[in-house]
């Protein structure tokens, strides 16, 4: 299967009828989530109003993990398939960018929730620490994507880094879990504590996950197409420069060394 990341020839637009429909559905979904998250769902007995943060926090965390899995799979497909299609590379890059964004939302919303519920912005718990590491690792991945070189060089390099991240994350998680299990007393309220979930709350959370998934798909499609167009522009720019230099060289008097 080839990834169809390239927009139609001649177009400079990343939108299509399908993405516009997807965007519209996502917008309606966001309105729906706002209504349920802020209006219809009740406040929690223990966490009170702060529970509403979870309707953003949980879906964004889930989406960030999904995004990084997509990056890893797309990187693997780029590296190990014979065609070495740049489409996979664009998908990997787009997904990682959106993943980093969602992970930032996860960390910020999580620490705000933590401040309200635990009284602390940050706990050195295994899951939190691994998440922070994941965030920094993928910021590094995005930096590697900007190192320069030709498209395939970039694709190969970043694909290897994405696959190394897959190797690294379980090791980081394992080490941090060992570290915490020996050094920290129990958390005030465990993140997945004994909060029994109300039906409407659970429904709002599911709405959140669906809406964020749609948003993720919409953003990744656009970013993937933008990345493709950037590469096209890069190639065209180079071709145009070569044509121009040739024309200069053909003109008499230009390019010859003055005596």
């Amino acid at each position, binding site marked *: 299967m080839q990834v169809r990341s390239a927009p139609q020839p001649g177009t400079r637009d990343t939108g299509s009828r399908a993405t516009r429909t997807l965007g519209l559905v996502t917008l309606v979904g966001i309105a729906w989530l706002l209504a349920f998250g802020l209006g219809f769902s009740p406040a929690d007995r223990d966490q009170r109003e702060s529970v509403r943060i979870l309707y953003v926090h949980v879906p964004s965390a889930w989406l960030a993990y999904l995004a990084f899995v997509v990056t890893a799979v797309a990187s693997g497909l780029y*590296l190990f398939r014979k065609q070495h299609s740049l489409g996979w590379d664009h998908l990997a890059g787009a997904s990682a960018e959106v993943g980093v964004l969602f992970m930032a939302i996860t960390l910020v919303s999580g620490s705000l929730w933590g401040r309200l519920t635990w009284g602390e912005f940050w706990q050195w718990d295994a899951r939190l620490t691994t998440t922070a590491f994941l965030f920094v690792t993928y910021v*590094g991945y995005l930096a*590697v994507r900007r190192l*320069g070189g030709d498209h395939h060089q970039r694709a*190969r*390099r970043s694909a290897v880094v994405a696959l190394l991240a897959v190797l690294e994350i379980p*090791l980081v998680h394992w080490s941090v879990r*060992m*570290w915490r299990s*020996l050094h920290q007393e129990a958390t005030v309220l465990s993140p997945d504590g004994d909060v029994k979930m109300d039906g409407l709350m659970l429904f709002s959370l599911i709405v959140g996950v669906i809406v964020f998934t749609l948003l993720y798909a919409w953003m990744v499609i656009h970013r993937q197409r933008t990345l493709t167009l950037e590469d096209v522009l890069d190639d065209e720019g180079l071709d145009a420069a070569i044509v121009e230099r040739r024309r200069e060289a053909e003109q008499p008097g230009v390019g010859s060394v003055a005596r």
Partner: protein
Amino acid sequence: MRRRTVAWAVAVKDLRVERRARVATLQVLPFAAIVMVLFAFALDSTAVVERVAPGLVWLATLFSMLVLVQRQFAVEAADGALDALRVAGVDPAAVFWGKAIALALQLAVLEVLLLGAAVVLYRTELRLDGVVLLVTTWVAATVALATVGTLYGGLAAGTTGRETLLPLLVFPVVAPVLIGATRAVEAALGTVGTPGDGWPWFGLVAVFAVAFGAGGTLAFGPLIDS
């Protein structure tokens, strides 16, 4: 040529370059020493410094490793030597292991000297029943750091902005080594717990070393290919 022969040739070449230029002895070692002194200034308490000495030794090693890796690959990239090796058809895995061995040997010496500095400056005391754990952790952590350093050093070699990119890539990756090696050495020295408590931590570091050794063997080729 067999992979082992090539790897050894690359390692010997790197160490020879180092012996002639003396960057590690004249710049990296004094840098590591000043870092150890700065830690003492920042923490400003003999009791605290004594307690956290193993962590400080590994932190100083990490900082120095970055400098060593930058240097090791700057030498290669300056004259396009790495490309020349590739064009000559040299097995990239052999280049990886050659450079990792050279880095590991330099790190191993540096770590011994830093531990010596900790004994002098931080009043760290070595105990006989922890020696086996100390030595095995020293070997495993050195291999782990050398493989990661070489892998990401190769990636950043010859690119603009490598000085700033390398720490961003390497530090999150080596976090397990820092945690594992620190806890194991703490146990070996008896700062926290007994030597028996340190073996799971050694296990963590050893698994890491094996994983990144294998990862580097496979990934170094695509990384330095241009």
